[in-house]
């Protein structure tokens, strides 16, 4: 099932339908008021996946690994991120629900397993636009650093490696598909990170630079740092535009985070400011010769922990604080 953004394609189908759903919908709303259930109804797609139409020819699929961007059109399907290896069957089924045309490109916005785990199987299910020796599957496009990251993984299938890459020092790399410019730029949060812009749709896939469900993963092992994270968010603010001057009418550029809901420039600013405040707070504590343990105990992320913190899972608050600490320590030594 595909949900739509309100205002973009609001379904005022028929009065009959409206009348049928009104009692149930208002009941749900009022139950939400009473606090007995969440009023936000999930709209599942295949398996536990959920599909949301973001723009006319742009969708996201969420629920396995990082959010997957789906651009569709007459040339076929372009995917940003391939999810986990285990999630590929559901992902492919969800993509088929959007478009019957073949997948032409898989673009990795980073090198993590939640992005590249499905590369091989998703690409194999696609069809390249080019003649042999490329193909027969879809092209896999990424920063050159992603290859280095994948090469570190024992048993990672070589047919999941990017077939085309760009270097982080390149200003940008672009191609034009489905009547739309698709632009990759290096996101300096970590070595393999890319922003992927869809210029006609006015959507940016922000990769791991921004996560609406947790603090960002600072990947120290692959060139990540808190300074790089902030630089990347500042870069993102250069390409995610607010709806000025008609701020009452539009949302501006949509930003798709690694996880969580679709965002826009407003949330990027909030996220950037949060990172700056946390960095400076921890740096101030380090200047006062506090140890990592003392800093963790002082809770330098208290203001944001209720929204983005976690004590369990693969990326806890303490892991984030430690990563910022070590990142600042490393920067000091340089």
């Amino acid at each position, binding site marked *: 099932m595909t*949900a739509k*953004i*309100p*205002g973009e394609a609001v379904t005022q189908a028929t*009065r009959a339908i*409206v*009348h049928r*759903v*009104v*009692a149930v*919908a*208002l*009941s*749900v*709303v*009022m*139950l*939400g*008021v*009473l606090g007995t259930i969440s*009023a*936000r109804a*999930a*709209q599942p797609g295949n398996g536990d996946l*959920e599909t*949301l139409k973001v723009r006319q020819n742009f969708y*996201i699929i969420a629920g396995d690994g990082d959010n997957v961007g789906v651009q569709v059109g007459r040339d076929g399907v372009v995917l940003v991120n391939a999810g986990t290896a285990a999630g590929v069957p559901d992902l492919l089924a969800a993509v088929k629900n959007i478009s019957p045309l073949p997948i032409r490109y898989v673009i990795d916005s980073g090198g993590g397993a939640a992005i590249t785990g499905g590369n091989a199987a998703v690409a194999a299910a696609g069809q390249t636009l080019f003649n042999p020796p490329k193909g027969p599957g879809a092209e896999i496009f990424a920063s050159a650093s992603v290859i280095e990251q994948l090469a570190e993984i024992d048993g990672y299938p070589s047919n999941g490696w990017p077939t085309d890459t760009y270097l982080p020092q390149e200003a940008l790399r672009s191609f034009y598909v489905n009547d739309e410019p698709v632009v990759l730029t290096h996101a300096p949060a970590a070595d393999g990170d890319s922003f992927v812009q869809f210029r006609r749709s006015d959507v940016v896939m922000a990769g791991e630079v921004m996560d609406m469900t947790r603090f960002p993963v600072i990947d120290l092992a692959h060139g990540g740092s808190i300074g790089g994270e902030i630089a990347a968010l*500042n870069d993102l*603010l250069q390409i995610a535009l*607010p709806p*000025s*001057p*008609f*701020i*009452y009418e539009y*949302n501006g550029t*949509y930003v798709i985070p690694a996880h*969580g*809901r*679709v*965002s*826009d*420039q*407003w*949330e990027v*600013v*909030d996220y*950037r*400011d949060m990172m*700056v*405040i946390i960095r400076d*707070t921890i740096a*101030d504590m380090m200047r006062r010769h506090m140890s990592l343990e003392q800093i963790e105990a002082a809770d*330098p992320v*208290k*203001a*944001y*922990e*209720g*929204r983005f913190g976690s004590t369990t899972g693969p990326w806890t608050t303490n892991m984030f604080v430690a990563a910022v600490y070590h990142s600042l320590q490393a920067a000091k030594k340089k």
Partner: protein
Amino acid sequence: MARNNSQFRVNSLRGMMTVAVALAFGAAALPLQAQEQYDISGSWVAPGTQNIMERAAGPVAGNFLGMPINDGERTLADSYNSGMLAEPERICQLYNQWELADGPWNLRFWPQVSPYTREIVAWVIEGTESQAGTTVWMDGRSQPSKLAPHDRAAFSTGSWAGNMLVVHTTDMKSAPIRRNGVFNSDEATMTDIFSPHGDLLTATYVMEDPVYLTEPYIYARSYDRSPERSVSPHWDPCIVNYEGVDEGNVPFYLPGKNPLLSQMMQIYHIPEYASQGGAETMYPEIRDKMKAQFVASYHTFPKKCTLYCSTGFAPPPPPKTAGKASASGGGD
């Protein structure tokens, strides 16, 4: 006794909400055409005397009194530097739907009707300025996906409970709910109850925020119908200009470094435990606690008004038990 009174008041408020919600719930079970839609349309003007510090000049820094905030919110607000609003990246941001509650001026309601049936499918509510307006859908549409963006108008649905319009709002932006650094999170929700009584409109705004509030934050205001003067929202286009902060800079105060947090003590002699807010500061008992301290320490207070002296917001007069010292301002 005081506790009992406060509890009674809170219970009354909650009782009123519960009744309203229950009525709305009952109304929700009715088909759309069976629900009577009251006419709330028109311009409603807020008397200038209500909550004027909150709505006009803005609250004193560090004044979180009466807000059920948690430690996270307090930490966030303590770090707040109003220069943040001058960040070029923030200049064209707006307030959110809470601006209806504590914004400076007035409201305007009008109905949106179906082009086919002429039934009212939504009520639009606009404040005077600085927020995107609220479209209250009355047609029973479902909530947006949890993946959907939170746009500036948020998402509101409504129903009638008698002549009360009950509005539930979700999908809000994170924005100030008090203009000294207290923000709601994007997980906050609002329930507004608009109760017209002839030419008087009573509005009760309730914010719940699982991230930053420990109890519902309730705010009530009243408005007079303005048949002769239409409320004109100032919805000017916005362009970014330099307002003193360079792009990429984030003005804020490190923990313990905000020099303004003692203003409540300096100006109003409100002790820190009260000005820091928290659910307990919503209830009348806090007055008794503060009064004892106020009287005991009165002799240490400045004897001359230094701020807001001619605006009616001067520090309070001396308590009768505090001797002959005068604290009347006059000052400047």
